């Protein structure tokens, strides 16, 4: 078994998230190739790289939207993709996934708000039904979060009545309402008109600086990645080709691929 070298638990003081030798294939196509990736508590890690390099896939695997093929993903020291059975790791079943998945929240490129619920209803649905919160308590928390993202006034609006930027801010509040330990952001500004990108980036800035939330963010916005990240990972063909501080990656890239990618992206802007 490919999980033999993987411990049942990570030792104290290990990073909050660890991908250990993770491989994901779609048919013949290897999308993640023996990937190792750590994200420490309170760390802001950006993922950049060319289209098709596996950036979204990393987030989808961590969100447990799909199964990985090899390796193990750990969150908070415990296996996420796998569970222990008779002293061995085996693929996690749905029941186990449901206990672990609450640690992780995700914000999508296309927002994916529930269109038949108001902004507030979007933010209390899961806290009430998954975390078992009382309605009053869930609403109070949701209102605080909507206030934090600047959407308190629109709490009773349905998503169809909101701009893209507003919808995305509600989606961030909805994910935060579940109190995840790690937030995953997949190109959260890519579907937005340029003039509303700033309002969403401001929310993410606040999450980073005031709340010190652990975040793993896929982005095409190099300026933002450079400004906000503790670490930047450059993905190429399902692997991390290079990683380092924003300064190292953007000012002094070592890898040829990184240099090519950055010059292509910076030329385009």
């Amino acid at each position, binding site marked *: 078994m490919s999980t033999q070298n993987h411990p049942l638990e990570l030792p104290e003081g290990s990073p909050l998230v660890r991908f250990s030798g993770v491989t994901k294939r779609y048919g013949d196509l290897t999308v993640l190739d023996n990937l190792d990736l750590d994200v420490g508590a309170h760390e802001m890690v950006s993922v950049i790289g060319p289209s098709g390099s596996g950036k979204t896939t990393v987030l989808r695997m961590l*969100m447990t939207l799909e199964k990985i093929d090899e390796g193990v993903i750990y969150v908070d020291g415990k296996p996420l993709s796998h569970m222990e059975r008779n002293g061995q790791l085996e693929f996690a079943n749905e029941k186990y996934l449901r206990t672990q998945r609450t640690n992780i929240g995700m914000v999508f490129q296309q927002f994916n708000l529930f*269109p*038949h619920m108001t902004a507030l209803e979007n933010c209390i*649905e899961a806290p009430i039904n998954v975390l078992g919160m009382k309605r009053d308590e869930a609403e109070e928390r949701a209102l605080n979060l909507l206030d934090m993202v600047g959407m308190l006034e629109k709490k009773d609006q349905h998503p169809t009545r909101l701009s893209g930027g507003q919808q995305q801010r509600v989606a961030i509040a909805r994910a935060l309402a579940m109190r995840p330990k790690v937030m995953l952001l997949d190109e959260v500004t890519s579907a937005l008109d340029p003039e509303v990108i700033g309002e969403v980036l401001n929310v993410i800035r606040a999450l980073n600086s005031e709340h010190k939330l652990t975040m793993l963010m896929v982005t095409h916005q190099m300026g933002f990645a450079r400004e906000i990240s503790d670490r930047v990972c450059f993905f190429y063909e399902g692997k991390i080709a290079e990683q380092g501080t924003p300064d190292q990656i953007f000012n002094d890239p070592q890898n040829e691929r990184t240099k090519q990618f950055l010059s292509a992206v910076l030329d385009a802007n």
Partner: protein
Amino acid sequence: MEWRWDFTIEILPRMLSAMLNTLLAAGIGYTIALVVGLIFLLGQRTKFRLCNWIVRECVEFIRSTPLIVQLFFVYFVAPQFGLVLSAWVSAMLTIGLHYGTYLSEVYRGGLEAIPRGQWEACRALNLSPARTYFRVLIPQALPASLPGMGNYLVGIFKDTPMLSTIGVVELMHTANALGAETYRYLEPYTMVGFMFLIISLPTAAWLRKFERYVGRSMGITK
């Protein structure tokens, strides 16, 4: 043959009470079909492959045989295997199952029109499968399914005359009986046609209004 108003008025009470039976049959049959359709839909989407396959085959089988054959089978053949059901029960069961298969397809179309991201959001929020279906997916599938659902409501209504063949005393059955008793056919059958018309037309118009209302009130259309 001349139209006789006195005869028309004489048979009107019997026709109207038969009309009530027709409406009752359509209403009950449709209600059963709505629920059966949901069961057929969910029964094909479980995590048990065998269950999905069995339900799928049943749906295909029921869909590809005529309603009247099923009706005769349940009412005339089933008793020979020890299953004796009254005309009404046979009728409701058969219509419910038959139209349930159509409605499950309507629901399925509605579900498949929902973007994949909705399912992903449910999973990311850790909602249970039941919550995912009943709180998020089905309510969104509803507006897209309503036109199809409306068509089958009218469809069931228009199929109720078939029930006369197994002795359910609805409009057609009553018109047949009146014809046999009085040898006058013009008035009874004309009245049947007219009564269907005055129910069908406004229902269809009301359904369209209802579709718009639902879309708006759910906030899905502006």
